[in-house]
């Protein structure tokens, strides 16, 4: 699409969408949001970029192949599930380490396997959607 307004606008939009997608990802476990919706928003950012500057440019901006991203995401999600093995809990049991407190209400923040799982989902969704979207974009 050769519109200077769209191309210029896309730059701002893409940056905003990417930040927003990370915000949604991190907000995930306790509030509405999460890896799935974050990944979708992230994919929209790259799709907007592909519409404005072409999918070749968008692939360069992504740096890695979307299919590979999805598969790595699957691996990350799987690892997040396997972590609970170390602690002797059933598969996918969330492992939490609270910093500055001992629960969601009191702690400043937490390090946990649930977020790792969400990051995996984020990558799977981002990679999966983009591999389809780029293929469609390049078809025509």
């Amino acid at each position, binding site marked *: 699409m050769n519109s200077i307004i769209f191309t210029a606008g896309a730059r701002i939009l893409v940056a905003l969408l990417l930040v927003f997608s990370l915000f949604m990802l991190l907000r995930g476990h306790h509030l509405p949001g999460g890896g799935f919706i974050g990944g979708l928003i992230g994919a929209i950012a790259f799709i907007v970029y592909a519409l404005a500057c072409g999918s070749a440019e968008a692939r360069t901006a992504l740096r890695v192949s979307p*299919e*590979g991203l999805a*598969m*790595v995401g*699957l*691996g990350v999600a*799987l690892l997040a*599930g*396997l972590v609970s*093995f170390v602690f*002797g*809990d*059933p*598969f*996918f*049991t*969330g492992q939490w380490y609270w910093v500055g407190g001992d629960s969601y209400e009191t702690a400043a923040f937490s390090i946990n396997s649930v977020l790792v799982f969400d990051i995996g989902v984020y990558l799977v969704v981002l990679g999966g959607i983009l591999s389809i979207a780029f293929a469609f974009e390049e078809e025509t």
Partner: protein
Amino acid sequence: MMSWLLVMPIAIPFATAVVAYLMRMSDAGRWISLAGSALSLLASAALMVAVLERGVVAAQMSSWDAPFGITLVVDYLGAVMVVITAITGLATAIYALGEIPARLEKLGYHALFQTLIAGVTGAFMTGDVFNLYVWFEVMLISSFGLLVLGGSREQLDAGIKYVALNLVSTLVFLSGIGLLYGVTGTLNMADLRDAVANAENQGLITVIAMMFMVGFGVKAAVFPLFFWLPASYHTPSFAVSAVFAGLLTKVGVYALMRMFTLVFVGDIGFTHEILIWVSALTMLTGVLGAAAQTDFRKILSFHIISQIGYMTLGLALYTPLALMGGVFYLVHHIIVKANLFLVAGVANKLAGHTDLNRIGGLYKSSPLLAALFVIPAFSLAGFPPLSGFWAKYLIVKAAIELDNWLIAFVALFVGLLTIFSMTKIWGMAFWKPHPDGIDPTPDRVPDKVRIPMMIPIGGLAAMTILIGFYPEPFVQFAEVAAAQLLDPTDYVETVLGARP
């Protein structure tokens, strides 16, 4: 660590898929896939041992107790399906060493293959209806990928039909799940048993049961919902079509067996009566469809349909003997049918085609292949003493015990027509001379390709013979599996935590 025993048969194929995908540009991918399949087989064997000890094992994912979390639960039927999935997976992973070209490997063949195996295994293990739907989707997506991998015109045509019809099936299934949740407020299968029995609106329950039957029926390729199967199974590579033929339709049959023994048993006179006639028509149309075909794989595809009828018949008759026959049939058929597709692949490599009119001479030039074809082919038709004989015997005996002579007659008649198709393949591919005057000797294919393709064929044929000559332990196993299906008290109690 019971819970990990249940997770491993699913987690290993997923992990293998990830690693194999990252290594797809090198030769290592195929060996990783092979190693992953071997590990899966070990993990499922360990699971089988646990099931033999305890009867039913269950694990609550993420420590959320049933009925709120996702439960993995394996009884005798589930355990044998998981093991047989791993065996088929390993056999086709070996076969792929010879058959799958580097071009397809670079497109991610092994990753898709392992994801498919993970999806099938997950479907056999889950104790949650919505989770079952998710596994169906995992299978659908990866099998679609495998079907169109390579992207020839014929494959895309088959892929579209396959995906469109299977999507309809999953949508019907999903709508059924939605209604079921609305009526009962739970989707845990064990919990559903009581919830469905106590539901006020039994009419609506029967409607939901029919939606499930249609959804699973498309997956299992029963009459009249089987169109997608013969339209698609003859196009992908042979390793892929062997996995499809062996496992995918059986997931539909398994789901039918599970839901219509555990949950939808309120109106057996209605639902299972329909299943009886559906099974009879499935057997007949499948075998008659096969009679009209001359392509190796198309004949075999139609025979999948006719054989599915026997398995659903085992469920439909709903006696201990019939269900036992159904379970036995399920296992026997996966081994035999996957093997026949693998044989078709070697025949194609040697003689140059799958159209029976354009090949021949295999008996004279490749007697070993001919012998390895006869074993599964005659087992399929139900010749004693091969595994298919016992499977058919149990089903027919169950039908006769119920004085359902018509069904028994149909089952025997279809067996006879199966022999007709198998002798047709035998006569045209093996006995008659090659129409182009070629001698399809084994050395037409390099050892590097031929040997990995022959090993799994020999192994699966050996299993067919083993089950045939030594059916006692397998029949006893099927008997316990059937008893568990008819009286799922253990299953329900294990899932809901009444029993440790």
